[in-house]
Structures are given as C-alpha cells and as structure tokens.
C-alpha cells in the first residue's frame, strides 16, 4: 500500500466505513497518515432497531452518532465530520451545492487519496449520489491538484461493467480493529457481527476473502 499524505473518506452512512474500508483506514493510520472521515448522514432511516427493538425512528440517529464516534475512536480517526444530511435524501440534494460542500472539505484537507463509493455501482441511492458528488468535486480541481480516488463498488453487475478492482489491500494485520469497528455499530451489526466471528473462526473462505481483502476501483477522472 502506498504511503499517503492525507486520506479523506467520504461516505453517507455511519457503518459504511466499517465493512469495506476500516482495515485500509487502520493501515493508513498505522503508517502515520492522518485520516479525515466525512459522514453525510446519521443513518436516520436505518431498519435495524435491535430485536426486540431498543431504538425508535427518533432515537436511532443519536444512537448511531455515538456508534460512529466509537468506531472512529477504535480506528484512531482524529478528524470525524458529520455533515448533517438526512439518510435516503442525498440524491435529492442540489448536486452542485453538495459537490461544492465536499469540494471545500477536499480543498481544506488537501488529501492525496479520497475514498468513496463508485457512482452507479454502489447499490444504495445515497452511496451513488455521494460518489457522484465527490467525482464532480474532484473534476473541478485543476488536473495537477487532483487526489487519487479509490471507489468501493458492490452492485451485482459491477465486475461485468467496470472490471476487477485494481487496488486490493490485505488487512489481515489489523483485522481485530476492523471487527471492533464493525461491532461499534452495534445497532446495525449486532446479529451480523456474531455470525461473522463464527465464520472467521470456522475459516469460511468466502467470509475470509471479504473481511481480509478490501477492494477498490481507481476512478479515472
């Protein structure tokens, strides 16, 4: 993995960082690279409330905010920003204003690498809209000022259309922190985390591949 000057992670939901990227974030932090995480919403519209439910529609954002702060603490992210958008509405925001807002954060933090979702290949409309706004913001920079952009893609058709990921990070050295970050989002991952640990213990090859290898597509601006 290349040593970066500064890594800026931009995702719409608390926990988006945990599954596909938290190992990579940990590796960068271990490398001494500062990481900024800009999280657009508080996942207000999540469906997981605990079973039996311990959260309501109205308490969920507060719970998820604390979980996000805990995940950031576990990963060692010093600069966590919550941008105050609302879950499920990102695609309906004014695109230029959203791109400008993200562009301002890119300008301020001056990252050498931005990590976000691959627009069109990230399943959730908020993911696609966030990725699109990041790409738009990066395009507006002069070519020699643009950071690299690594995108997360996981739609069913993504490999057919955009090929294989060109960046694959082996995060086995920091797997404990990755699992801790996933667990920090307890309201969303309670059941999944238990199954996942069991699968890792049983060396389930599919789960191991997904957990230990984080895959990115470099976006060609």
């Amino acid at each position: 993995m290349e040593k970066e000057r500064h890594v800026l992670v931009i995702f719409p939901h608390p926990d988006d960082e945990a599954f596909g990227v938290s190992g990579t974030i940990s590796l960068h932090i271990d490398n001494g690279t500062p990481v900024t995480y800009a999280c657009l919403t508080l996942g207000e519209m999540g469906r997981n409330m605990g079973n039996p439910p311990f959260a309501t529609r109205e308490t969920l954002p507060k719970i998820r905010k604390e979980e996000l702060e805990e995940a950031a603490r576990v990963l060692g992210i010093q600069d966590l920003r919550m941008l105050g958008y609302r879950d499920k509405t990102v695609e309906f925001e004014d695109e230029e204003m959203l791109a400008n807002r993200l562009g301002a954060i890119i300008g301020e933090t001056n990252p050498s690498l931005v990590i976000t979702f691959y627009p069109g290949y990230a399943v959730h409309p908020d993911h696609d809209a966030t990725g699109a706004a990041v790409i738009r913001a990066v395009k507006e920079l002069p070519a020699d000022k643009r950071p690299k952009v690594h995108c997360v893609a996981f739609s069913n058709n993504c490999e057919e259309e955009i090929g294989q990921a060109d960046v694959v990070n082996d995060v086995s050295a920091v797997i404990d922190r990755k699992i801790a970050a996933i667990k920090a989002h307890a309201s969303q991952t309670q059941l999944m985390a238990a199954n996942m640990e069991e699968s890792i213990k049983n060396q389930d090859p599919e789960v191991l591949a997904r957990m230990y290898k984080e895959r990115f597509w470099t976006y060609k601006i």
Partner: protein
Amino acid sequence: MEPAVMEQVQKEIDRLAGKEVFIHLETTNGAYASHFDETFFSSGAYIRNAQLVYEHGKVTGKGPYRVGLKMNFGWVYAEGITHFEVDEENRLLLAGHDFSGKLAVALQISETPFE
C-alpha cells in the same frame, strides 16, 4: 418500544385527535432488498412533518394492527403496527417490525415538529 397494546394506543390516538399535529409516516423494505433478491420489487415512501388535524383515529386488527386517522379532507393509514412508545416529548411512536426485528412501517404523531 413495547409491543403494541390496543387500549393504550387508542387512548393516545384519542389524546391527539382534534389537534394540530405533525406526522411521520413511512414504509420501507430497505435499500438493499433488490440487491439481495433481484426478483424483489423494492418500494417505500415516507413523509416527515406533514401538518394536519385528524377528527378521530382508530387502531384495529388482532396484531399486527392497522391504524387509520380520519381527517376533514382525507385519511392517514398504516398497516403492520407491532410496537409503540410514548416518548419523553409525549409523542406517539408506532412502528411495525418484521419477523427479524427490522422496521417495516412507522407512524408517529407529535404536537411539535420532528427534528
């Protein structure tokens, strides 16, 4: 939240009838439903802070419950209500959780706007 108890829910619906209230109404199958099952037709809707007055409302069914609020000019309806809570701001929160505990429907009534 607690499992919905018809009498208590009805009492709360009655308490808020005839008042200017704010409604959060939502149905959802989650943003990933069609990703995990491409034969699944994903749909959902929500409205947050619709301001209205209902003349009367009723909770019916054997659980999961249905709730209907009759307005001068229309209706508010939700189906699949399993849980309820009156929160510290005295808002009536009704929710339907599916068999795995995930939220499927929400109907919330408040005298002040939701955040």
